């Protein structure tokens, strides 16, 4: 029996040239990514059963109101398009209001999906595999909700095609010196690349569903979309490279999208908008709200679908930590905006920030600061990160706070600009409110259909991070003394 060696001591080759690496003490051991040592087969069965079994009652209870809200969205859109943009509360001096607030809010929520799928992939954060599929789906649906607003708020939606690089009826091309045109390219690229990335990740998992399918319809449809995937290692080799490149391309993409959204504001000359801190501040806020939404969606899902062994408490814990970090970055940005307003000595800038904190919209500012900066600080405490009820409530408050942040930036900056005779107070109309509720209908209808018909968890990727997937691990079949060059 060898003498117990310290972990810090250099391991020397013992007899037979075998290096004895002492096991780390149990308290330093990380929790496994898949709890209870579940087998490959268990993972396939668990995830596939979600779309193979009959829909649970709670699914219908959520689905029916979502579809009704979606129907309301279509009604509101028809009313707005047929009557005019005046059905909204947008009125001088606040010409951008809930439409742009909701556009920025939804597109921000989308950012966690790409962050999880791309940036955490490049950083080799293997825990991402349990949540990336659902987060990417969330991204796509959130961008769909976001995309509705700019298309509607132009007022004459039938001219939306003028945004495309096509000559309009007077042979005039779009004007690329405007950040609004950059935004068109950023958002449409973001949507397209997110769909490509999501679909590529789905191919091996669609093959899982294809190979288990009992009915002809399922065999045909999953078979069609799995593109004839066989799990060939020659294919996996190209697939993994393509996945890495897509992650590498999506990383600058996700950073650029909310940067460009922020340029819609910061390129203008309005106090409260004309700030160089906007791009990083918007990106941090977007990731913050996106993780809030991922937690809001996954905490109920993991218990309803009994996925606790795949989405473990460790996953919840790390996502809370990302929320805490990005929330604190946002808090720093809030402070820095006030500091620069004071330090610049610009009277308009100073007035704007006084007005933001003490003016007629003080209530919105207080909501924003408390939900985004103060409440997430509770995540410093491990006990609260482990309490699912607390995490769920905070995750919702994060998105309430982020909505108010966009409201503060857009409406509060516009409502009192340079000349007091130009001032006003904005109120939304019932159409604004119903359209916003309608976008939730679109989002949840899409998301509920997704969890019923597509693999909610990236099964093939989760299999790959289990110990039995590692050919050099005893659970992967490695015998002592067997070494593969």
């Amino acid at each position, binding site marked *: 029996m060898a003498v117990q060696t310290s972990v810090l001591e250099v391991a020397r080759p013992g007899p037979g040239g075998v290096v004895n690496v002492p096991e780390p003490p149990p308290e330093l051991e990380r929790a496994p990514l898949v709890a209870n040592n579940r*087998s490959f*087969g268990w993972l*396939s069965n668990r995830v596939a059963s979600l779309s193979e079994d009959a829909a649970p009652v709670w699914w219908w209870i959520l689905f029916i109101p979502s579809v009704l809200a979606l129907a309301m969205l279509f009604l509101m859109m028809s009313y707005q398009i047929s009557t005019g943009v005046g059905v909204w509360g947008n009125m001088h001096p606040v010409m951008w209001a809930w439409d742009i607030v909701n556009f920025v809010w939804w597109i921000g929520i989308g950012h966690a999906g790409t962050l999880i799928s791309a940036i955490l992939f490049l950083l080799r954060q293997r825990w991402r595999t349990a949540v990336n599929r659902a987060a990417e789906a969330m991204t796509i649906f959130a961008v769909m909700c976001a995309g509705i607003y700019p298309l509607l708020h132009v007022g004459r939606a039938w001219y939306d095609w003028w945004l495309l*690089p096509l*000559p309009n009826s007077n042979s*005039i*091309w779009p*004007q*690329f*010196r405007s*950040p609004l*045109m*950059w935004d068109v*390219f*950023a958002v449409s*690229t973001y949507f*397209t*690349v997110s769909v*490509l990335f999501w*679909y*590529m990740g789905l191919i*091996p998992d669609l093959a*899982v569903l294809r*190979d*288990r399918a009992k009915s002809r319809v399922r065999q045909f449809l999953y078979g069609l979309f799995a*593109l*004839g995937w*066989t*799990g*060939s*290692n*020659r*294919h*996996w*080799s*190209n*697939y*993994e490279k*393509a996945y890495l*490149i*897509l992650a590498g*391309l*999506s990383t*600058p*993409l996700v950073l*650029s999208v909310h940067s460009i959204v922020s340029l819609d504001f910061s390129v203008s000359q309005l106090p409260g908008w004309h700030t160089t801190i906007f791009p990083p501040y918007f990106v941090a806020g977007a990731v913050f709200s996106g993780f809030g939404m991922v937690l809001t969606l996954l905490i109920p899902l993991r218990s309803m679908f009994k996925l606790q062994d795949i989405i473990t408490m460790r996953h919840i814990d790390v996502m809370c930590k990302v929320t805490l970090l990005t929330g604190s970055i946002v808090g720093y940005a809030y402070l820095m905006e006030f500091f620069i307003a004071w330090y610049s000595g610009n009277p308009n800038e100073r007035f704007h920030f006084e007005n933001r904190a003490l003016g007629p919209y003080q209530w919105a500012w207080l909501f924003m600061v408390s939900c985004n900066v103060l409440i997430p600080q509770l995540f410093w405490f491990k006990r609260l990160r482990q309490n699912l009820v607390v995490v769920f409530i905070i995750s919702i408050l994060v998105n309430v706070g982020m909505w108010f942040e966009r409201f503060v930036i857009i409406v509060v900056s516009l409502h009192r600009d340079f000349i007091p005779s130009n001032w006003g107070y904005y109120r939304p109309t019932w159409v604004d409110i119903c359209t916003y509720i309608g976008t939730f209908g679109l989002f949840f209808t899409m998301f509920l259909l997704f969890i019923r018909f597509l693999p909610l968890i990236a099964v*093939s990727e989760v*299999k*790959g991070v289990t110990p*039995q*997937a*590692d*050919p*050099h691990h005893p659970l*992967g*079949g*490695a*015998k002592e003394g067997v070494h*593969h*060059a």
Partner: protein
Amino acid sequence: MPEPASKPYGILAEFTTAASILHAAGKVRQAGFRHWDVFTPFPVHGLDKAMGLGNSKVGWFAFLGGVAGYTTGMLMIWYMNTLDYPIVIGGKPMFSPFSAFPPSYELTILFGAFGSLFGMLFLNRLPRLHHPLLKNKRFSLVTHDRFFIAIEADDPKYSETETRKLLEEAGSRHIEVVEE
């Protein structure tokens, strides 16, 4: 019994662990086979090396896509706002690489992403909805929890008895001949 007219696609051997497939893949490669492949439910670490696969060529497709995207963006904006219909907006220059950069940057990513996805599909010859292995009952476990090696009948070294023996020695418990 298979009909005598049907041609064998190859021989299919089943394995149950990641270590055994890695070990067997090394053996098959050493035996000098060329038309063979390994099938796994997830990418197994080290298998590319064991099979002797080189670096994937997907990167070239993505790179060419990216270059095409950036060039398209810059040329398109220059043509539209400078050549075909110049309009003075706020005294700004007709074309500036700075204001043309954000859309061109997005197009770089967009075309690069198309390049990597379609490059991957092209290199893998996908979609291919009919494959002899996909008709095999046992092979459907490849997406569940099993690992397979298939050696094709058109490999110069293929022999139904010898190849079977090799795969048995490599540790496979279940071997069968798959029809075309």
